[in-house]
């Protein structure tokens, strides 16, 4: 039988160390909504989402109350809209109409984000994908809860550099259209290499075509719990450090598994995966950078940071894999700058640079995330940053992503305020040397030799 010390330990993690389930994300296939008539398509989409997801928030709240375990977000991911809208949409405006429909549906069921305004031009770009991508700035500026993502490459296909070039411009344009709110549109837009089909985290969640009709995916959190656990092994060797992370990650992930199973049972929707990611929030004590500091680094970004994050990421997976029957999504340690107060401090004092963050993304999920850059950064420079990150993902057979925010009207030394979970981002310096001639070449970068495994 459970004893009082175990109960006290679990509740202390929740009450004092910010342990929570970060998101229950309901994946909904919209394939059966497809029509060549835009009005009919939008009606189908609205009808399907508001029917399938009608109990999502209520069920999430019930589970939260019964276990006294916070479930911070209830969200929805849908089939990439470039596929769903392909036969009905003739213009960017048509796609924006779908985005507005998604936004209405999200508001109706009470979720805070809906992901899947997406295109997957990893190798080539269809006409519909091009239209969707070009509609992203308009769609994100005219909706509140819709998130967009674009998969620009993969280990199997190489990198679609035409799409990389285009996304530099689209990110810039999105920033300009939401300039009055510190370019917040870009916080809802992410580009990927090797995008997973079952990611529950925003902005990159979409319901992949390899998925069943509806599925429940859960993202756990708990940097605060790991940090507190590591306080007890200060000064001890790496073996002890790793063992501690592994055991703690196991416990955190078990709660994700429990919530996923319960949500699945109560909503009668299959359980998909638990995403093992350690996701920080702006709250003090809920930070990845604090974990690095407890490991022995003065600030995130100090020499040793890449090794520390590699170790952390690996041990979180080793502990988490046994705790859940199905693991998927992004599963790693997130390093979003704006959502982690100690990362913000490290960036402000100069300890952490974009180049160091890029190195960190080689060994952990997911990428250059929530990084504010000067508003006058050229579109081609953003494309160059994206190309670098995509190359890391392609060669290392892992997911990488870029979610940068060129904050219009702001420069290094200033900061952007997004509010809520998205936090505050100090504008970081970008290498100003040109990559114009490189990114303007056009075409695609072939898949690396180690992708040919057949």
């Amino acid at each position, binding site marked *: *039988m*459970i004893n009082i010390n175990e109960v006290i330990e*679990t509740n202390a993690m929740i009450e004092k160390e910010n342990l929570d389930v970060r998101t229950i994300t309901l994946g909904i296939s919209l394939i059966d909504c497809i029509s060549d008539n835009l009005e009919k398509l939008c009606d189908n989409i609205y009808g399907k989402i508001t029917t399938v997801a009608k109990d999502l928030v209520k069920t999430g709240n019930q589970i939260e109350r019964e*276990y006294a*375990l916070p479930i911070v977000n209830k969200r929805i991911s849908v089939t990439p809209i470039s596929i769903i809208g392909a036969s009905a949409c003739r213009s960017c405006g048509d796609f924006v109409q779908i985005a507005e429909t998604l936004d209405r549906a999200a508001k109706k069921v009470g979720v805070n984000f809906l992901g899947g305004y997406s295109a997957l031009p990893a190798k080539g770009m269809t006409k519909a994908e091009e239209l969707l991508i070009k509609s992203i700035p308009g769609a994100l500026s005219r909706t509140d809860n819709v998130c967009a993502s674009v998969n620009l490459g993969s280990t199997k296909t190489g990198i679609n550099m035409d799409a990389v070039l285009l996304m530099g411009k689209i990110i810039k344009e999105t920033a300009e259209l939401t300039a009055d709110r510190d370019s917040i549109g870009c916080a809802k837009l992410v580009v990927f290499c090797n995008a997973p089909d079952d990611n529950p985290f925003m902005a990159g969640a979409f319901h992949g075509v390899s998925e069943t009709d509806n599925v429940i995916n859960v993202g756990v959190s708990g940097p605060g719990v790991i940090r507190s656990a590591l306080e007890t092994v200060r000064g001890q060797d790496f073996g002890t450090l790793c063992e501690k992370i592994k055991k703690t990650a196991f*416990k955190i992930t078990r*709660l994700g598994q*429990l919530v996923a199973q319960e949500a699945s049972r109560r909503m009668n929707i299959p359980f998909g995966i638990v995403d093992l990611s350690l996701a920080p929030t702006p709250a003090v004590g809920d930070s990845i950078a604090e974990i690095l500091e407890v490991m022995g680094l003065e600030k995130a970004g100090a020499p040793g940071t890449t090794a520390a994050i590699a170790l952390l990421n690996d041990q979180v997976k080793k502990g988490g894999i046994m705790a859940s029957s199905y693991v998927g999504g992004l599963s790693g340690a997130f390093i979003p700058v704006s959502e982690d107060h100690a990362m913000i401090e490290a960036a402000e004092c100069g300890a952490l640079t974009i180049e160091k963050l890029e190195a960190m993304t080689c060994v952990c999920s997911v990428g250059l995330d929530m990084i504010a850059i000067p508003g006058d950064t050229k579109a081609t420079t953003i494309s160059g940053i994206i190309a670098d990150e995509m190359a890391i993902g392609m060669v290392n057979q892992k997911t990488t992503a870029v979610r940068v925010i060129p904050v219009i009207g702001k420069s290094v030394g200033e900061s952007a305020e997004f509010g809520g979970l998205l936090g505050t981002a100090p504008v970081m310096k970008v290498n100003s040397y040109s990559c114009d001639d490189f990114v303007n070449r056009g075409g695609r970068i072939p898949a690396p030799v180690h992708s040919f495994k057949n």
Partner: protein
Amino acid sequence: MQKSIITVVGKDRVGIIARVCTYLAENNVNILDISQTIVDGFFNMMMITDTNNASLEFLSLSEGLEELGRSMGCIIKLQREDIFNQMQRI
């Protein structure tokens, strides 16, 4: 039987257990086990209970206990046991 865990945390005083037990008896909740300890100077009590035949819905029972806790200056939580089994047992 699905068990539920009640935890009471606060400053020790006369009658806490009595009042919680009375409330549970009034609502037909059976107590299977009680243990208590002091952590950081605070009184911590845990009860393992059977709430299956309770006269109130789980969430109403939970709210009633929270209210009772507030009236005594302590924090009372009702949680399904699964959360602890999942985390603490393989």
